[in-house]
């Protein structure tokens, strides 16, 4: 007997899948576990340490044993719980941790060595030699003891993340969750109902109890239809709420396409951040086993799971079962399976007063003391007042009581409280604010109690936020009292498993006790109890009970370890939410990006920007050839470079000039309209921060620029100054970096080229001299701004047009300048040109340098206050004697290496003896040799001196001559004429 009658599976359709290469068939509505059980498969895996045969143990996400690898290739996903995998056509699953085969596993020899593999075995055994741990022991142990294998390939699927807001989040759609959602939604509240299963109903789907005299599933179906008419209710199936975070934020993963073979174009999973004003925790309860000798054979499972497989999935792998219980609930399994035609050999009830609820044999006051069967259960050994006997059965349902799924309620350090009557932990009152436990999660175990508790929780939660929700009419349901005897394990000589996944037995807990690892946190870490992918959902309470028994304390006094998110495993892929690879952060493209791509440019990431680094031409085999050619073109003809990425901030208002005077260390209020001035910003601690230009277009209108890297930060600081420091000033600012495309036109033929596109604008040196700026039109009416500024030291302009015209402007300049030898240049050539000219950039403005070190000390106005002015005068900073210098190799063909430290010749090469460092270096086509910039103690007074640049990290040193930090046109004639 395998597939029974009835169940909530769609028998009109057949689904074919494989397990370890063998083809099986199931139906829509099956899980992998139910379909395998229905096919008579009990053996589904091998255990972690001893490689013992294991079968499915539970019917939900708490499953410790039936872990499988799903899929193949890059989609291979290890450690998937067969109990939650929704069956679909073509599903491919493999068992784990076995070789060569599941039914014959060579490492099962470990089981014979079990006496050595007790708790703490690794800690005690692999102590020395110390160096062997990483190189030998750990790799060996990891190979032998294991779960699934990663594919080691990039995840091919797409993931997404989303944000939701609601008045009430209901976690779980069993009877209490459904009642809560219905109550809240009917009251008009915005409700989200999240259910980890693919079907609503929770335990209602697994039980035969009726609601209003009809099958419970009918009520669920009617409710789903009613939900469709409630637009304020969002039902999220296949969605696990995995954690509670501050301020009512709940993390949830929706498995959007895991039940399909291939997600296709859509996303596979979505990470939801749900902000809920209130929440009802209706996560139900998880059954716990009783530990007894050899209780891990395939076929032994939780009694509630056995019942769920029979009732919901019409699956039972064997003809004859038995049940071992300490509570009334175990008898339901016997009654339900009998009704479905399965033979019940016996119900062993730990309670002496137990009686049968149907036509089956009860062994009252009995205990299971052992089991038989190599790859699956064949018989159990039972002891009672009437002696010992062996009972043949292929499956055993075990019930040791139910543990409320209170995990979320303890995510904010809520401490579960032990309830002696229910023999279980319940959520305490100090859980996350706004989270109300209900139903079985709050210890309301009967269906009637769960329904009314759910409705009451919703009413209470919504009442706290001023929404009046009357409990809705609820169906009549079973209201059996909860009766249980405190039996957690059967004492014996052989191993009795408590944590199946991590192979923790009662003996291991006794050993931890004997070695004084008694506090629960020590117990957990010493034995690894509850540390598997299941986080001990079926194991923890039993483990605590055993420790409590050994220490003579109550379970309540023993306490629990702290539950933390996630409730069930969450893949890193979905936590990334799709923000991987090129989507890891925003990628900004300058206006001429597509044009540069068409030119074959090589790009470099500069912050978020993609900038053209250089433009190789056919025949150029080394990047230096392109860069040298581009730099030379600027010095001899004209070059074009997209400099849009430099930050642009528009400053307007009656107090714009006064405002800028307080931001820049030099004075900008004296700047005449139509002129540009270099500006240097300090940090409030006095160090140099950022530089750029300030152009004055009107008395009350400036445009200032920042470096590319600091564009956002400088703008943020300017807003801070405007709003927090000097709110009384009449000034408004806005970042226009993305609004204006800006192109540098540099070189002796720059004026000739520009004259061909301006609309009658006088570019003559007298009319538009160095450091002039103006608004104008170009190309027949296009609004533009022109700045005569130079980063390269050549006659140069920067022209700005609205960003959408950036590419057209670049194409126009290239076309009109063809006869002039116009050449696009990238960031490499830009850097070479500025090093040749001795302009500071990021390497010089690195937060360790002062205005004086940059040779700009006299720019710091002593007549006015500005950010950083006071602190720049403090002794430590003012006394810094480093000065920016140029450096050239003494030997022909010598190199200049950035980052190298500078030493006086003959000085010891220690950090204390360092006299500075090299900030920038390049090959200069203009000089025809390597050059560099650097900071050197008293460098301004050491021109001509030879110093040693040493590179202790990579080795090597070179003799360099100190020269002025300007290698081209030191008089500045080129940029002025």
């Amino acid at each position: 007997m395998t597939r029974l009658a009835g169940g909530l599976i769609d028998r009109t359709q057949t689904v074919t899948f494989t397990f370890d290469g063998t083809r099986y068939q199931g139906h829509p509505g099956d899980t992998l576990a139910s379909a395998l059980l229905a096919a008579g498969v009990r053996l589904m895996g091998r255990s972690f340490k001893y490689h013992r045969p294991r079968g499915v143990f539970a019917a939900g996400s708490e499953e410790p044993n039936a872990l499988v690898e799903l899929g193949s290739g890059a989609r291979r996903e290890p450690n998937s719980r067969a109990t939650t995998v929704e069956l679909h056509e073509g599903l491919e699953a493999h068992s784990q941790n076995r070789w060569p085969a599941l039914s014959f596993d060579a490492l099962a020899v470990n089981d014979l060595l079990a006496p050595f593999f007790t708790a703490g075995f690794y800690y005690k055994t692999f102590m020395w030699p110390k160096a062997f741990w990483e190189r030998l022991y750990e790799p060996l142990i990891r190979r032998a003891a294991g779960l699934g294998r990663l594919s080691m390939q990039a995840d091919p699927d797409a993931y997404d993340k989303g944000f939701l807001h609601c008045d009430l989040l209901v976690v779980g759609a069993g009877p209490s969750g459904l009642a809560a959602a219905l109550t809240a939604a009917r009251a008009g509240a915005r409700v989200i109902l999240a259910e980890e299963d693919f079907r609503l109903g929770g335990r209602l789907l697994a039980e035969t109890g009726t609601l209003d005299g009809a099958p419970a599933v009918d009520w669920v179906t009617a409710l789903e239809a009613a939900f469709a008419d409630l637009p304020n209710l969002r039902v999220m199936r296949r969605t696990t709420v995995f954690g509670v975070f501050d301020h009512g934020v709940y993390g949830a993963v929706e498995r959007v396409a895991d039940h399909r073979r291939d997600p296709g174009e859509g996303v596979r999973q979505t990470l939801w951040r749900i902000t809920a004003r209130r929440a009802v925790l209706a996560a139900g309860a998880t059954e716990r086993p009783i530990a007894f000798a050899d209780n891990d054979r395939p076929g032994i499972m939780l009694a509630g799971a056995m019942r769920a497989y029979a009732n919901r999935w019409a699956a039972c792998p064997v003809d004859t079962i038995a049940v071992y219980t300490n509570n009334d609930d175990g008898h339901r399994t016997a009654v339900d399976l009998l009704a479905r035609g399965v033979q019940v050999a016996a119900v062993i009830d730990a309670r002496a007063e137990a009686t049968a609820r149907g036509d089956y044999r009860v062994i009252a006051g009995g205990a299971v003391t052992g089991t038989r069967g190599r790859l699956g259960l064949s018989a159990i050994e039972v002891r009672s007042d009437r002696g010992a006997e062996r009972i043949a059965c292929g499956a055993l349902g075990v019930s040791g009581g139910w543990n409320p799924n209170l995990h979320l309620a303890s995510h904010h350090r809520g401490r579960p409280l032990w309830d002696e009557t229910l023999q279980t932990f319940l959520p305490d009152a100090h859980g996350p604010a706004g989270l109300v436990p209900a139903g079985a999660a709050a210890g309301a175990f009967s269906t009637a109690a769960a329904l009314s508790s759910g409705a009451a929780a919703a009413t209470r939660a919504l009442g706290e936020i001023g929404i009046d929700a009357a409990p809705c009419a609820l169906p009549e349901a079973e209201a059996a009292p909860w009766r249980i005897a405190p039996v957690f394990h059967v004492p014996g000589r052989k191993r009795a498993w408590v944590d199946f996944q991590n192979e923790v037995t009662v003996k291991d807990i006794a050993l931890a006790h004997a070695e004084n690892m008694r506090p629960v946190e020590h117990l957990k870490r010493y034995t690894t109890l509850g540390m598997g992918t299941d986080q001990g959902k079926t194991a923890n309470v039993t483990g605590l009970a055993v420790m409590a028994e050994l220490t003579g304390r109550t379970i309540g006094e023993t306490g629990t370890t702290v539950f933390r998110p996630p409730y069930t495993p969450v893949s890193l892929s979905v936590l990334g939410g799709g923000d991987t690879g090129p989507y890891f952060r925003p990628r900004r493209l300058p206006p001429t990006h597509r044009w540069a791509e068409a030119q074959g440019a090589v790009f470099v990431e500069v912050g978020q920007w993609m900038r053209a680094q250089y433009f190789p031409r056919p025949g150029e085999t080394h990047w230096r050839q392109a860069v040298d050619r581009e730099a030379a073109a600027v010095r001899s003809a004209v070059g074009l470079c997209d400099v849009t990425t430099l930050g642009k901030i528009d400053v307007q208002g009656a107090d714009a000039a006064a405002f800028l005077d307080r931001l820049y260390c030099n004075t900008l209020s004296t700047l005449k309209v139509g002129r540009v001035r270099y500006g240097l910003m300090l940090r409030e601690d006095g160090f140099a921060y950022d530089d750029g230009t300030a152009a004055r277009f009107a008395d009350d209108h400036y445009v200032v620029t920042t470096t590319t890297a600091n564009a956002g930060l400088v703008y943020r600081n300017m807003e801070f100054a405007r709003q927090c420091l000097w709110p009384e000033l009449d000034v408004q600012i806005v970042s226009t970096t993305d609004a204006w495309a800006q192109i540098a036109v540099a070189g002796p033929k720059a004026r000739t080229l520009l004259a061909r596109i301006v609309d009658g604008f006088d570019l003559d040196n007298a009319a538009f001299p160095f450091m002039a700026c103006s608004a104008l039109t170009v190309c027949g009416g296009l609004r533009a701004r022109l700045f005569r500024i130079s980063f390269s030291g050549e006659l140069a302009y920067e022209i700005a047009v609205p960003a959408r015209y950036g590419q057209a402007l670049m194409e126009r300049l290239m076309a009109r300048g063809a006869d002039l030898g116009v050449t696009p240049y990238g960031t490499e050539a830009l850097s070479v040109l500025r090093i040749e000219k001795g302009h500071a950039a990021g390497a010089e403005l690195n937060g360790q340098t002062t205005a004086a070190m940059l040779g700009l000390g006299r720019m710091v106005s002593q007549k006015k206050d500005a950010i950083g002015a006071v602190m720049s005068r403090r002794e430590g900073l003012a006394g810094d004697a480093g000065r920016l210098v140029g450096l050239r190799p003494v030997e022909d063909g010598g190199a200049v290496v950035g980052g190298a430290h500078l030493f006086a010749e003959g000085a010891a090469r220690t950090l204390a003896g360092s006299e500075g460092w090299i900030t920038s270096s390049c090959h200069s086509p203009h000089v025809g040799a390597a050059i560099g910039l650097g900071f050197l103690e008293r460098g301004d007074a050491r021109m001509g001196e030879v110093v040693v640049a040493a590179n202790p990290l990579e080795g090597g040193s070179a003799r360099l001559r100190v020269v002025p930090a300007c290698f081209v046109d030191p008089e500045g004639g080129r940029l002025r004429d």
Partner: protein
Amino acid sequence: MLIPHPLLGPRDAQEFVCLGDARLIERPDPAAADAEAAFCDYVFLRDNPAGVHRELWFHEHGDRSWLVVTRDTVTHAVLGAELARDVALARVGRAP
């Protein structure tokens, strides 16, 4: 975490950048005799209270307002938010 923006209502904290102690609004008088010592405290020293803390948050991915957010560093509860500009204006004796 939501921040109750005085102009825009509750906004996700991810839209903001946190600078820290709101006392950064109180920039010392640069003309005072002890200006250097006062600036040294202003730049380098911060209180680190367990409990109620007033912090500067910048709505960078929003309306670019600087806010003074009052927050409990023990419970993480956000107790209120006001425009930093209003706080700064009140400091110099001006109405917002």
